[in-house]
């Protein structure tokens, strides 16, 4: 494998990391039945907060902590507005999307363009020396390794633990879960705040690691929406969600590589359109029942495992309020 390709793949993994973390965070709250639509704004505000705290204290760790708190507070606001104040999750989330991005831009104006020292890559001894895999996956900053662990832990928690069973029950059949003694709204509060915490960390991973710095308008605007679409593409399954994030990042990396190369002439605009066309295309694929039809023509033994992996029905109670009274 030549060096340039390895570099592209390495930066793909890095660039995908905020998307992976944000989309896994959103998967956690959506599996419990709550939509946090505010991602595009939350990411911006968390990135700004993380950068400002990181630069002023000189500690990236504190920056990540502050960003995580911001993300968790936003999520708390959405879930309290839903459960206690009976306001539509989508409406509150959408208003927050715009509001938080504007707050970030307004408060961050003096920090735009300020230099910073981003997290430096850490080579993991042993695995970093494996050919191909090492240079692509194990020569990154700490936050990238955090995302690997996150994917696996989320999968274990969600599908192979008792709390995960309760979480999915709350998102699929809240009334049944309630009748069996699960405190539905308390579960939803917990997973939404947990998801928000991760969304905050994702925001800070832009400004402190992957795209270090802060700019007006924020560089990651639009990624929040992509992350939300990736959750759908990923069928609310941690592995597929992560795969979706890597695919999007790969597409972006390829388009910027093509842009730099002199021998390939494709209009730049067409390349910039690709991620959005892919987003709409994949949503059509997973929403229109094409996959179900595909599954039916497959040989029987292949059907079972592929159904588990390709299934893409949203949690049945997604976005609905549960009133125990």
């Amino acid at each position, binding site marked *: 494998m030549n060096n340039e390709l390895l570099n592209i793949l390495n930066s793909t993994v890095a660039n995908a990391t905020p998307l992976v973390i944000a989309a896994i965070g959103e998967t956690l709250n959506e599996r419990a039945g709550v939509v946090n639509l505010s991602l595009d704004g939350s990411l911006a505000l968390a990135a700004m907060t993380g950068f400002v705290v990181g630069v002023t204290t000189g500690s990236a760790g504190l920056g990540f902590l502050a960003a995580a708190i911001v993300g968790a507070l936003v999520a708390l606001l959405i879930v309290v507005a839903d459960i*206690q104040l009976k*306001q539509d999750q989508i409406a509150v989330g959408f*208003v927050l999307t715009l509001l938080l991005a504007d*707050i970030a831009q*307004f408060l961050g104006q003096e920090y735009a363009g300020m230099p910073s020292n981003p997290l430096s890559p850490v080579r993991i001894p042993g695995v970093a020396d494996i050919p191909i895999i090492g240079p692509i996956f194990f020569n990154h900053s700490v936050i990238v390794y955090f995302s690997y662990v996150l994917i696996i832990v989320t999968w274990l928690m969600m599908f192979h633990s008792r709390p995960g069973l309760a979480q999915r029950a709350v998102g699929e059949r809240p009334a049944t879960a309630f009748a069996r003694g699960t405190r539905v709204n308390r579960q939803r509060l917990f997973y939404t705040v947990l998801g928000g915490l991760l969304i905050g960390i994702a925001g800070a991973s832009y400004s402190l690691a992957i795209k270090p710095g802060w700019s007006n308008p924020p560089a990651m605007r639009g990624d929040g929406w992509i992350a939300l679409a990736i959750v759908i593409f990923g069928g609310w399954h941690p592995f597929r969600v992560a795969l979706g994030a890597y695919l999007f990042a790969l597409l972006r990396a390829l388009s910027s590589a093509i842009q730099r190369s002199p021998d390939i002439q494709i209009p730049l605009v067409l390349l910039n*359109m690709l991620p959005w066309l892919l987003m*709409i295309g994949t*949503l059509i694929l997973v929403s*229109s029942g094409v996959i179900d039809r595909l599954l039916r023509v497959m040989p029987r033994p292949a059907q079972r495992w592929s159904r588990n992996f390709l299934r893409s029905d949203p949690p049945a109670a997604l976005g609905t309020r549960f009133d125990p009274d």
Partner: protein
Amino acid sequence: MRSHRLISATFIVLPVVVAVLFTSLLVMLVGNEPGEVFQTVWMGAFRNSNALAAVVNFWRPLVMVSMGLVITFTAGLWNIGVEGQMMMGAVFASWAARSLALPHPIQISAEIAAAALGGALWAGLAGVLKTRLGVNEIFGGVGLNALANLLAIYLISGPWQPPEGGSAHSTTPFPANSLLQPASTEFPVSMVALGLAFASIIGVTLALRGTRWGLQLKATGKSSASARLMGVPTTRSVISAMMVCGMLAGLAGSYRVLFTYESLRPLVSGGIGFLGLLVVLLAGIRALWTPFIAFAFAAIMAGSTRLRVSLQLDASLAGVLQGALVLLVLLSNGLRGRVVEWSDRRAAKQAASVSETASPGARHE
């Protein structure tokens, strides 16, 4: 019941006060005087007839988009794609402005018709994606917004680039014959466009109140499944609501290119579509309140363009004030519900204890 009215009044004033306080706090955080900032915005919007005209020139596209969104919200749709529909209206109007050369009134009519068509088609696409292919209109809309803007960038930097060379900034200004004409130099507003805005306000209000179509939209919005069982053609309702909204958004977008900028630019919609969603949420999807709230928002938007010039502050403060207002109104609506519930329960308890003491023997009869 008097207490209910008092509670209602409190919960209308409260979010406004808190939103202003919150915005002031942010202003102080960046080291400025809130009083000075609010005065700058106010003066920016109302200092003379020219400033007022700038407010009207924001209001005109904003109110048209908002009236369109009243329709989609009534049908239960989150038309986030409204920004892209404005862009497509702008692109189609620009095409007509560049390539046609007709007598002025016919030219303008052709441009406006093209804008309406562009917006309606782009919205119809989102509607078809939703009804035929199951793509949620929020995500379909976000994707279509990005695509519409990239299309504009492609046209500006490619086929429509100015002859002096490719800049991604804007096309060459359109010929004077293609532009909407201002009423006067003291009050530079296009009366033709303003007339169209008033027509759309009246048209949407009447269509929702007194037509069969309006009723079908309401039924679809309340519960799509039961509306279908009642024989309402829900697919047609969804697509027609989207297309009418897209038409109005397209007209709004055309105003930005045929009057405000006199050329096509990237992001020519200027966030007005998203702002329209906030306006309609704040109005509680009521057609009658929408124009007034749109005016207040247009004043904040036009007034805050002065912030950078006179105080070196980012104009995103306008969005902070508007967003905080809408968020707090939503939250306070919820809080009011809780307080009314609580005061009713208390009143019921009191009534029960009063009746008990008034007729102590009642229980023994």
